[in-house]
C-alpha cells in the first residue's frame, strides 16, 4: 500500500454565464465582472505602451481580427503550486492538486506582430461554430508597443501578460462554490487490465520567433520528444507563441483543453486505457524531422502504446512531420491515426494531403483549408480596423478561405468540420 495520495488533478469548474466591465473585478454566481483599469495594470510591461481590454461575447454581431493567442483563465488552489509553470513561477512539474477554471471565458490578445497571419473569428453567423472563441465570452486585449521596444520584447510581454491576466481573473473565483468538480487521474503508466493502451502524440510548431511553442516556459525547438502527464497541460505547461497559420493554430487555450486528451479520457476504462501524451517539436530540417519522428516512435514503444493519435500544428511543412511520425510508429507495430486539414483547393478537387504517409493509412479530416466561407457584415470589430488578407474594413462582409478563420481546421481536433465527396 502506498501512503501518498494517488497522482491526479482536480479541476474545479466555475461557469461564466454573464460578463461585464465594472469598478471591481469579481466572480459571483456565474457573473464575471472585470475592472478594465485593473486588467490593464495586470498587463503592464516595459515593452507595452497602451493596453485596452473589452468583452466580445458569443451571439453578438461582432468579429475579432488579428487574433494572436487565447488563454483560458485558470488558477491553482491552496498548496497547488504555480499555474503556467516556467512563465509565472518556477518551472516545477505540475499537474496535481486543484486547478480552478473559469469555463466559458477566454483571454485573447489581438493586434499586429511580425510574421503573424490574419486570424478572424466571428461571434455570430455561419462562422461562429468554426472557432472556440465563437461560443465564448472573450476578454480581448489590444495593445501598442512601448516606444523603442523590440518586437521580440513586445511578443514576450504579451505572452507573459496574457498568462498573468488569465491567472488573475481565475483567482477571483477561488472562494466561489464550484459548478463542477472533476477528478482527472493521471495516465495509466503501467499495462494491466487488457484494454488497449492508446496515447496522444502532439507535434507542436517550433520555427523560431513568432512561430514558437513553450514547454515549462522554454522554447521547445531544440528538444527531443517528451512523455508527459496530460494533467501538466491543465496547468499551462505548454503555451503558444505561434502566430502563423490562423486555422491551423494550437492556441494555449487548446493545450489547456487538448481535444485528443479529452476524447481519450472520455473512453478511458471503457474502450481503451489512456496511456499518456508525447509532445514533439516540428523542426524545419529534414534530418531533424526524421530524428524526432523515430525518437517519438521509440518513446511510444517504451511507454507500451498499442496505438496513437498523431496531431500537428501548421500547414504543409507540418504534414511531413505527421507522415514521418505515423510511418515510424507503424514500423514499430503501433497503429497511428493522424488528424489532417485537407488542402484540396477552393473547389475541393486537389490532392488533400501535402505529404501523405506511406505505411499509415488512417486519417481524420478537419476540413478544407482552401474552401471559401462567406462572413456577413458585423456591427463592430475588435483587434484592428482592417482585414489585411483581403484589404477590407474589419466589419465588412468577407469572403475568406477557411485557412484564415481562427482554429477552424484545428489540428488538435477541436472542430466538427470534415470533408465529404459531393455529387
Amino acid at each position, binding site marked *: 500500500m502506498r501512503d501518498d495520495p494517488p497522482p491526479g488533478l482536480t479541476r474545479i469548474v466555475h461557469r461564466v454565464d454573464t460578463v461585464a466591465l465594472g469598478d471591481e473585478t469579481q466572480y459571483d454566481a456565474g457573473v464575471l465582472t472585470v475592472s478594465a483599469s485593473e486588467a490593464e495594470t495586470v498587463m503592464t510591461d516595459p515593452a507595452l505602451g497602451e493596453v485596452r481590454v473589452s468583452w466580445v461575447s458569443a451571439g453578438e454581431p461582432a468579429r475579432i481580427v488579428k487574433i494572436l493567442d487565447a488563454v483560458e483563465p485558470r488558477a491553482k488552489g491552496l498548496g497547488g503550486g504555480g499555474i503556467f509553470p516556467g512563465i509565472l513561477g518556477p518551472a516545477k512539474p505540475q499537474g496535481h492538486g486543484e486547478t480552478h477554471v473559469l469555463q466559458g471565458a477566454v483571454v485573447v490578445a489581438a493586434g499586429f506582430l511580425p510574421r503573424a497571419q490574419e486570424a478572424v473569428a466571428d461571434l455570430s453567423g455561419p462562422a461562429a461554430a468554426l472557432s472556440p472563441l465563437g461560443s465564448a465570452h472573450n476578454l480581448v486585449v489590444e495593445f501598442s508597443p512601448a516606444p523603442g521596444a523590440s518586437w521580440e520584447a513586445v511578443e514576450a510581454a504579451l505572452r507573459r501578460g496574457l498568462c498573468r491576466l488569465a491567472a488573475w481573473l481565475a483567482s477571483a473565483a477561488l472562494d466561489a462554490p464550484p459548478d463542477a468538480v472533476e477528478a482527472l487521474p493521471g495516465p495509466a503508466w503501467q499495462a494491466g487490465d487488457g484494454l488497449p493502451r492508446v496515447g496522444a502524440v502532439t507535434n507542436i510548431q517550433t520555427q523560431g520567433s513568432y512561430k514558437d511553442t513553450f514547454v515549462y516556459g522554454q522554447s521547445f525547438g531544440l528538444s527531443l520528444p517528451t512523455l508527459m502527464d496530460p494533467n501538466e497541460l491543465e496547468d499551462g505547461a505548454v503555451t503558444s507563441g505561434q502566430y502563423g497559420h490562423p486555422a491551423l493554430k494550437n492556441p494555449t487555450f487548446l493545450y489547456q483543453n487538448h481535444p485528443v486528451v479529452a476524447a481519450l479520457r472520455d473512453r478511458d476504462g471503457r474502450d481503451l486505457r489512456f496511456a499518456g501524451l508525447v509532445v514533439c517539436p516540428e523542426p524545419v530540417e529534414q534530418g531533424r524531422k526524421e530524428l524526432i519522428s523515430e525518437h517519438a516512435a521509440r518513446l511510444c514503444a517504451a511507454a507500451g502504446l498499442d496505438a496513437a493519435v498523431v496531431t500537428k500544428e501548421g500547414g504543409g511543412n507540418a504534414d511531413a512531420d505527421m507522415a514521418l511520425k505515423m510511418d515510424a510508429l507503424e514500423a514499430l507495430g503501433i497503429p497511428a491515426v493522424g488528424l489532417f486539414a485537407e488542402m*484540396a483547393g477552393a473547389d475541393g478537387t486537389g490532392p488533400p494531403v501535402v505529404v501523405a504517409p506511406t505505411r499509415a*493509412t488512417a486519417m481524420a479530416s478537419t476540413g478544407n483549408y482552401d474552401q471559401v466561407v462567406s462572413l456577413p457584415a458585423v456591427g463592430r470589430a475588435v483587434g484592428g480596423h482592417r482585414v489585411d488578407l483581403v484589404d477590407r474594413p474589419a466589419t465588412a462582409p468577407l469572403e475568406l478561405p477557411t485557412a484564415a478563420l481562427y482554429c477552424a481546421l484545428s489540428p488538435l481536433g477541436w472542430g466538427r468540420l470534415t470533408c465529404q*465527396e459531393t*455529387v
Partner: protein
Amino acid sequence: MTRIVHYINQFFAGVGAEDAASIPPACAAGPVGPGRRLAALLSPEHEIVATVWCGDDHATTPGAVDEILDLIRAAQPDLVLAGPAFTSGRYGLACARVTVAAGDAGILALAAMHEDNPGVDEAGAIPVVASGPSARHMGPSLERLAAAARKLASREPLTGEDGRINRPARRAVLVDRAGAERAVDLVLARLGGDQAATEIPLLRFQPVSPAAPVDPAAAAVALLTEGGLVPDGNPDRLESARATRWLRYPLPTGGELAAGDYCSIHGGFSTVWANEDPHRILPLDVATDLEREGAVARLHPEYLVTTGNGTSVGNARRFGVEWAAELRRAGIQAVILTST
C-alpha cells in the same frame, strides 16, 4: 423529364473541320450529330432540348465560354452534357470550361473525354466520364455518357464504376462529432482489425521523372524560385501564401541583388535572412561567377518567381507548364529552381 443541352464542336455539328474552327457559337433545337444517338439512349425520361456548338479555336478565345453559356441558358436546361471529346485537346478544354461555367451557374453538368485529354485537369469539380480515344469508339462512349447522365440527373454521385476519371470534389461539412473524437473512433476501428478505416482517401502523387542531364557549359540557364523574392515593395502584389500567379522580373546587369532592392514576401518562413542577402533565395552571385568562368554558356536575363506556400497542386502544375513553355520559347536548356 430532364431538359438537357448538349455541347459539341463544329466538326461533330457537321459544320466543317479545321477550316471551320473559328466559327462562333450557334444553337439548334433538339439533338444534332452524335446527340441523336445520345437522345435515343436517354429517352423518354430525358430529352435533349437543344444543341450548342462552337469552333474549337473560337471556344478558346476570351469571352467565348460566356457566349456559349448564354445560348445554353436560353434553353433552360436541368443538365448540360459535353462531348465526347475523345483525345481532341481543344475540344476537351472547351467541354471542360463550358461544363464548369454551367456548374457555376447552378446547372448540373457532365463531360466525356479520354483520360489523356488535357480538359480532364480543367474540369475541376465537374464529373468527367471516360470516352474512347477516337470517334471510332463513339457508340460505347455515348452509352457510358448516357448511363452517367441518368445517374447524375437523379442526383446520385458518380464514381469510378460509372467511368468517372476525375476525382469527386471534397467539400467541408459540419458533423456532430469533433475531429479528435473521430480520430479515436478510427483508432478503435484499427485495433478492431479494420485496416481500411479513414476519412481521407490516400492519394499517391505522380512521380516526376528527372529530365536527362544537359551539358551546362553549352546550356542557357535560367534562375527560378518559389521563395517569393520580388522587387522591394512587391509592386505586383505577389501573394505571400496560396499563390495563384507567377511573375517575371529582369535580373540586374551587375550580377548582384542588392539588399534593400529585393525582398521575400513568402509567408511560410522568417524572411529576415533572405532580405539581408537576397542571393540566399536566388543565387545570382554564384550563377554570374559560373557564367564568367564558362561553366554555363549564358544566364537568362530574367528570373521567374512565385510563392510556394500552401499553393494548390493545380496551380503549381499550371505554373510548371507555363514556365516550361516560356523558357522553351526563350531557348533555355536548364534551370536552377530554388525551393524554400
